[in-house]
């Protein structure tokens, strides 16, 4: 290990070493060589930090992780490992870990195996973890709860903030598109602000922001679609480990991905029946229009070339078998491929398709997963699935207990993608509940060891008169 390794590398290194050791302990017996090597590596990293800084403390605040008060910057290469570590800490209610000098191997084993164990329902996870460490005689690793980063300014009502961000984005999208239709000069500043708000909101509380996808309170479906695709794209970008600036560019491109449609008559856009050849020819040029229109937006320090390309390419297809036709050799860009997926998902679950009824979120996910790779990037489709979960937020579900529920958040346990948090909206007897309880489907009956509830299938909300946004947005 170089003593001149940058601080960022040292901080990330100790966390990835922790993750590696935890994973090794989970997969192999403790005597295994791989376990031994990973623990040795971890000790080495920790020793280096002690020598550099005299101590080691790790803490989690929101989506940020800190090592000795220095924020750890995640990049794509280590995002998966560090996000898993962060989620594991959160699941046990751990916000802060202080390591005293000379942590023993046994201490590490107890700590790391504790991290990867499931939490027990009915017991405060942090207390349980602290008790576990105490029972194992671990005194050199001290865990504590999260503390707020700042003394003020945090919005305690996540849903309210998400709604405001959503409404602001819709308003900005409307202003921009109306301006372009009228041929007015359109400034970029408000659009940029809308996107940075979306990015911040997704970084702060992705699940709540995803709940906003169910809002259908605005007349103009195209605006809703634009904002939804922006939220989904930023969320997927975050899931993939994009930096903040990349998330901004992606969100901006996604917000305006269909801006070319302002030049298509609404009678064609809103037509419920099949389009004629001529109408289809017109609609399929909206990426072309979008590219040209973006040059009319003013106020950028640098021209938004990446957004322009994403707008132009988002229907091209992973193998360039979509539209517009490609004459000069190119590839569909990564951002365009992301938008292709998020756009398809939102279109599938929304109620403004042509002759098709919207499908449930889980069915939309399945459709994306089962595409043959021609239209959508297969790796990205899988990443999208793992981000959304098998039953995405806002899925109406029938539980095997006969209760009706609405998925409000994915499971905090990375082992249980199919066991999200669900708000009960109707009892077994079919009685509708207003502010029903939220149930964690990972809850186990201690008497039988079986899950208390499981999702039997998803359901059509309209069949049961449920307005999903009332429960998630």
């Amino acid at each position, binding site marked *: 290990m170089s003593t001149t390794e940058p601080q960022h590398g040292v901080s990330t290194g100790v966390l990835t070493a922790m993750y590696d050791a935890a994973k090794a302990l989970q997969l192999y017996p403790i005597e295994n060589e791989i376990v031994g090597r990973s623990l040795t590596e971890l000790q080495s990293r920790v020793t280096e930090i002690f020598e550099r800084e005299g101590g080691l403390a790790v803490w989690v605040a929101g989506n940020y992780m800190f090592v000795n*008060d220095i924020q750890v910057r995640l990049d*794509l*290469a280590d995002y*998966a490992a560090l*996000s*898993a570590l962060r989620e594991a800490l959160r699941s046990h209610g751990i916000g802060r870990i202080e390591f005293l000098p000379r942590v023993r191997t046994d201490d590490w084993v107890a700590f790391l195996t504790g991290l*990867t164990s499931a939490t027990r329902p009915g017991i405060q996870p942090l207390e349980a973890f602290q008790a576990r460490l105490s029972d194992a005689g671990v005194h050199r690793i001290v865990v504590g709860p999260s503390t707020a980063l*700042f003394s*003020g*300014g*945090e*919005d*305690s009502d996540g*849903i309210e903030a998400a709604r*405001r*961000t959503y409404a*602001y984005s819709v308003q900005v999208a409307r202003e921009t598109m109306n301006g372009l239709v009228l041929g007015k000069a359109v400034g970029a*500043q408000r659009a*940029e*602000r809308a996107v940075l708000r979306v990015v911040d909101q997704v970084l702060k509380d992705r699940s709540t922001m995803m709940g906003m996808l169910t*809002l259908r309170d*605005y007349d103009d479906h195209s605006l809703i679609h634009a904002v939804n695709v922006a939220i989904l794209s930023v969320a997927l970008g975050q899931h993939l480990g994009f*930096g*903040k600036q*990349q998330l901004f560019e992606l969100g901006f491109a996604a917000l305006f991905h269909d801006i070319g449609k302002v030049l298509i008559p609404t009678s064609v856009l809103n037509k419920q029946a099949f389009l004629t050849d001529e109408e289809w020819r017109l609609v399929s040029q909206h990426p072309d229009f979008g*590219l040209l229109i973006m*040059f009319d937006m003013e*106020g950028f320090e640098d021209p938004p*070339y*990446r957004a*322009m390309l994403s707008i132009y390419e988002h229907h091209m297809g992973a193998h360039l078998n979509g539209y*517009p*036709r490609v*004459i*000069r050799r190119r590839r569909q*860009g*990564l951002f365009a491929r992301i938008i292709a997926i998020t756009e398809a998902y939102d279109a599938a679950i929304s109620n403004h398709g042509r002759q098709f009824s919207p499908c449930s979120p889980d069915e939309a996910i399945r459709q994306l997963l089962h595409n043959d790779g021609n239209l959508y990037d297969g*790796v990205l489709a*899988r*990443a999208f699935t*793992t981000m959304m979960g*098998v039953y995405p937020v806002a899925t109406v579900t*029938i539980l095997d*207990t*006969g209760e*009706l529920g609405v998925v409000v958040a994915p499971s905090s346990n*990375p082992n*249980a*993608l*199919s066991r999200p948090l669900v708000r009960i909206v*109707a009892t*077994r007897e079919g*009685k*509708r*509940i207003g502010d029903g309880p939220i149930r964690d489907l990972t809850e186990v009956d201690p008497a039988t060891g079986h899950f208390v509830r*499981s999702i039997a299938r998803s359901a059509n909300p309209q069949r*049961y008169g*449920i307005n999903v*946004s*009332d429960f998630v947005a």
Partner: protein
Amino acid sequence: MSNLQDQKAANLESGGSIAAGDDHDRETARRIEEFVVAFLKDYRTRLAYTRGNQLIERFHGTVLDKLHDLWELVPHITLTIDEGRLIWREFAVYDEPIGHDNLAFMFFRDGLRTLVLLPGCEQGELREFVDILANQRRGRSSDLLATLWHRDFSFVRIEYVDAGEDGSLDIPAGNRNAGAGETIADMTEIERVVSAGPVTAEIDDGFNAILLSEADQGYLQREMDLELERPLAHDVTLALLDQFEMRDQERRRQVVDVLRKLLPDLLSVPDFATVSLIVNELQLLANKTGEQDTQELVLSLLRDMSEAMADLVSAEDEGNGSRPAQHELDALLGALQAEAIPTLVRALPAMTDFSLREQIEQALADLVARFPDRLRELTSAEDPVLAAEAARIIARLGFSAAAADLVGLANRPESVARRAGIEALGFMPADEVATTTVLTALDDEDWTVRKAALEAITRLAPHGAARELRRRIASRGFAGRDEAEQAAFLRALVAAGPEEAVPELSELLNGRGRWGGKHAAIVRAGAARALAVVGTPEAATELNRAKADRNSTVASAVSLCLRHLEQNVGTLPDGVDE
């Protein structure tokens, strides 16, 4: 604002100041106030002085010292931003009248509500933060919030106002209790689920469920690298060219309009590769369609861009590698239109890169061949230097159709223009008007113009020139001209008519001047050389007469000339300079 902030604001409104609070807080607030004062001085110094000024370093140093002391008291500095104040806890650590100079107002106006400084900010981010504020104040950045957000500092955090706080947004509200108490009518599906019993099959999530495989991660990392390395402007250009090629005339017009906006950005980088791609492809596509409208469309774009492109290609390498590759240069030069001519004409004289100069000259020659009138127009340019350069190029190209324009130039009030016009006329066929113009210039007030006229006469030997020269040589004023001018007259006289010049030359060499004495030695030597150029037996005879002249300058010149005549006729002897 949160309830906590409302409480703080209320404390402040009720007269909270540094005097309130416990001793520790009071002392800390006082130190923070000192820090803010130092920060302000740093910020204002950057407004007043340029980067690198020692005062900036000094004031920034003071800020860092204050900060260093503060870290012993607080783990972070969180300031709430009011319209005109910065507030730490319940203490106003900055409070000035609201106005453009108020720092808090600058934050507040752009939506910032909280500023947090963390330990580590002194390692560079704080300095950059102050620079950003100074640039904002100077008007170089339009949106402070967006600028700070994009910069994404690690140790300088901001929080901004929530959207819709002013009530201007249509924010949807949920109603969970809508439908509460009602009974679901159709229970069929639910009954079917219940009768099937508890779910036992489990989706195999596994610990790696949310993790991409290593191969997937590698794929995504590569894709991200490709995305970040993507030549964006170039790829946008490819898209536009595709549109130009596959769509109708209206779309082509739109694409050209867009390229008209895009090209200046590309030229300013300079992105030679993309610019040369555009000009090449557009011309190819225009020719391929064969449609006049399309060709005219492309030409109009090239005309609009020609001046900027000419400026770029004629700029010599400043050592930063900003020069096009040869094929790019060829493409750009080949795309130039008449509008580039003035720029190239202006650039040529100062060019020191020989190879580039040659190529620019060739490009200019090609343009002039296509647009001769444009070069001719330049001889009437308001800028006399530009007009003079145009004349020189006309001469170099032998562009005889422009002779009338050169005559006009020769009559301008500026001597630099007159001289260039006369010089250039020396390379044109000698018609009557040109001859008259050149001969008239023999009496120009400016010696450089007269010299140019004499050289032109030497070159052209126009009809009637000998008589005019003789008249001036014989005039009283001739002896008063400087020696170089007199020698130039003699050369011109010989060129205008060698044999007819012998009497005058003999008179100068062997005759007497106005006051009875011989002419000046240098003039006599010049006459000797001119006689050698004439080279007739009569000329040789006159030279012999002066062979033993008492003046050594004259004798030496005569001797050299006679020896030269023995060997050659009609050229000046080597070593005898003019």
